[in-house]
């Protein structure tokens, strides 16, 4: 933290920085590390404050220390942080207040936009699941003819996946599945007994269940020790912030590296309104910023820009960067800026209890908070082709227990018998929930709200247009039925099936809207995450995605960021930007 505090030096409006990075989350943090390590002088502008893990994270807090057991007083969420679905009383400071950060939606088609405005962004409380995409994903269109391929293939990005995994520290197993590529892993986290049963149940249906690949340190390598990161002790409080640096986040893993180079200036509470365009060249020359606290307006200048505000914030920034040279915003010439918004969907699945574990004693590993993963098993090839939908889904889930006994919600009664029942079943839960591919469709898009709605700083907000198609609904139907079958085969009882798809945005994997491609007429970015229309601007977060795949996206965001930074540095040094 001390090194980071030192990077909080005043930013200068007179200086021209080599690179200005907007955002300090997964992508912005990694960009700061990569660019400063290559000797560039970097200004990181982060809209939110810098939290101090020791003071602000609730990893060591017990639920009984909170008046409402971590849930917060009744109604607080509906009043302030309604759209921050995963926020709790212990983690509310990570999330934006919806009252200050509006967005609008099409009537009848809601969208849930979970956002973090703090140094580190959503990495402070993310789920840590770290999967590679394969050519089944990058070249999905070649498989089934829908939409277009990515302009990159697995071979090109594989070395950057290696780098990302080795740096952030991903625990996992190499399972030898061609469509779920292996990587550079720390020792895997063992499955619990219940998860072993799930694995056997899935195998009976010819479905593979594998150990999770999670950005949590199960061993400390020198690159982790150097920045004070410790091994995970399975406290299960990752969503409240990890104070020992065992889980990857920008505060523990990337920003300290950038700070140590002394090449990074970090300005917090700096909301970038838009990029400032040089009307002679069409390139960006600076950023217009409003201070979150003082509301003071200011400008900073740079040679190149990394836009990493998270998928939709980045696109909002580009759309808000209108000028005579870029009348539809920077990157707007193709007409696809804002288009092809996707999110994974979940919701469909099944849960139950494993009666053979009722009343057992708890063990430390019960709190491991990493679960299982069932990689995609539909539409891998002709033999697994599903007649009703394209692409596929995987399952997350498991049989582990958190500090709060979820089973209490479903247990009737009160008093000592209620407590006895809760204790008995607390140790036996099992569940599977879907993580599914949503097709990238032109008609799912964001635009600057045509009604003129603004946020608390007067910055125009997004209007989101998104809905599922029958492809997703068919997939959800299949997923709910398959999840229940797996649970049954595992010996679960009291199986409940969830059949509704989550509202778009709920899985917090919003992707697309500034897609990369091979043709400037149909894409916003080239294969280096570089804006076709303004070559000194790079968009390195999920906005660049062509398709969602069904795997969690952050590892791919990190790999693309490293690759883009390498290219940016070379191009800057060659004088090409």
């Amino acid at each position, binding site marked *: 933290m001390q090194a980071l505090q030192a990077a909080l030096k005043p930013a200068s409006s007179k200086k021209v920085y080599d690179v200005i990075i907007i955002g300090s989350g997964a992508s912005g943090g990694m960009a700061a590390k990569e660019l400063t390590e290559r000797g560039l002088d970097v200004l990181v502008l982060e809209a939110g404050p810098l939290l101090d893990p020791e003071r602000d994270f609730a990893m060591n807090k017990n639920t009984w220390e909170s008046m409402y057991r971590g849930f917060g007083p009744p109604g607080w969420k509906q009043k302030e942080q*309604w759209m921050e679905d995963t926020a709790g009383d212990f983690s509310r400071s990570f999330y934006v207040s919806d009252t200050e950060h509006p967005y609008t939606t099409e*009537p009848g088609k809601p969208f849930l936009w979970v956002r973090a405005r703090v140094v580190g962004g959503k990495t402070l409380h993310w789920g840590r699941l770290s999967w590679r995409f394969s050519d089944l994903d990058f070249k999905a269109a070649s498989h089934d003819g829908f939409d277009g391929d990515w302009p990159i293939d697995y071979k090109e990005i594989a070395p950057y996946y290696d780098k990302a995994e080795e740096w952030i520290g991903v625990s996992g197993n190499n399972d030898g599945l061609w469509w779920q590529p292996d990587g550079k892993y720390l020792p895997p986290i063992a499955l619990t007994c219940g998860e072993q049963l799930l694995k056997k149940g899935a195998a009976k249906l010819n479905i593979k269940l594998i150990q999770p690949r999670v950005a949590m340190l199960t061993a400390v390598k020198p690159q982790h020790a150097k920045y004070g990161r410790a091994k995970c002790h399975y406290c299960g409080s990752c969503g409240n912030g990890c104070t020992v640096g065992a889980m990857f986040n920008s505060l523990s893993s990337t920003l300290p590296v950038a700070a140590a180079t002394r090449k990074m200036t970090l300005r917090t509470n700096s909301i970038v309104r838009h990029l400032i365009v040089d009307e002679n060249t069409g390139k960006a020359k600076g950023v217009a910023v409003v201070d979150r606290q003082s509301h003071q307006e200011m400008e900073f200048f740079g040679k190149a820009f990394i836009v990493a505000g998270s998928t939709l914030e980045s696109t909002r920034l580009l759309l808000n960067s209108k000028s005579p040279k870029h009348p539809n915003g920077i990157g707007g010439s193709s007409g696809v800026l804002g288009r092809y918004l996707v999110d994974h969907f979940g919701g469909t699945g099944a849960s139950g209890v494993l009666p053979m574990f009722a009343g057992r004693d708890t063990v430390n590993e019960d709190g491991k908070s990493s679960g299982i993963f069932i990689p995609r098993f539909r539409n891998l090839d002709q033999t697994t082709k599903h007649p009703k939908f394209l692409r596929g889904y995987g399952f997350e889930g498991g049989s582990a227990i958190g500090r709060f006994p979820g089973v209490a919600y479903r247990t009737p009664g009160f008093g000592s018998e209620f407590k006895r029942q809760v204790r008995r079943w607390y140790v036996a839960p099992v569940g599977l929930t879907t993580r599914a591919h949503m097709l990238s469709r032109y008609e799912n898009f964001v635009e600057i709200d045509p009604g003129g709605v*603004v946020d*608390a700083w007067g910055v125009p907000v997004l209007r989101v247009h998104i809905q599922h198609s029958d492809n997703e609904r068919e997939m959800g139907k299949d997923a*709910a039925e398959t999840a229940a079958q797996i649970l049954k085969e595992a010996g679960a009882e009291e199986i409940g099936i969830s059949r*509704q*798809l989550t509202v778009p945005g709920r899985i917090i994997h919003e992707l697309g809207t500034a897609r990369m491609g091979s043709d400037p007429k149909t894409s916003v970015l080239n294969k280096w995450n570089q804006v076709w229309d303004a070559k000194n601007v790079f968009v390195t977060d999920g906005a660049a995605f062509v398709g969602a795949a069904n795997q969690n996206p952050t590892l791919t965001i990190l790999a693309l960021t490293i690759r883009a930074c390498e290219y940016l540095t070379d191009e800057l040094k060659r004088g090409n930007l």
Partner: protein
Amino acid sequence: MFTQKKPATTLRKLHSLHALPDGRAFTGKIEIGKARYQFTFTPQEASAPNGKLTLRGSVKVKPPTGSARTVNQVTASLLATQGSIVSAPPVPKSLPAALQLEQPTRSLPATDATDEQSSVGVLYFKLSPLDGRALGVPLDLSAVQLNARLYATAEVERDFQWLVSALVLAKTEAQLTGYLAEINRSLKA
């Protein structure tokens, strides 16, 4: 767009104001440093020029010390809405049969809080220009956006949320007129 630095104005502009339902009114607070001003917008009449909901009513501001000030004939014009992500409120008990919505049957899974399960979560209104001095608020209130989050805890609030949701989803002129009449009835009740 805003590439020039903004000229320094003496009063900071209040861009938006968060409010929650309180019976038939919306209440919120304006914070300036440690000072809190209680804000109340009480709509008395609804109309829908060009299909967009407009509420007309009074704005009352109570400063941290001293008495409240009120301005009448304030209009709140709907700019846009944000969809709710939780289940829709129940159909108002007094809703005429002709205005009830049909529930379609589905063979495939639905999406949470979408289509027939949807409702409006936030109404974003532009208020007609307010005079900060007249209301005793040392801010520029000339273009305030009222973010009315429909967190309904009473029947009258739930009915309003249901009717407003039906209004923004109205597909025919007859539905629009019908829901508007119901909103006006509930505002005057």
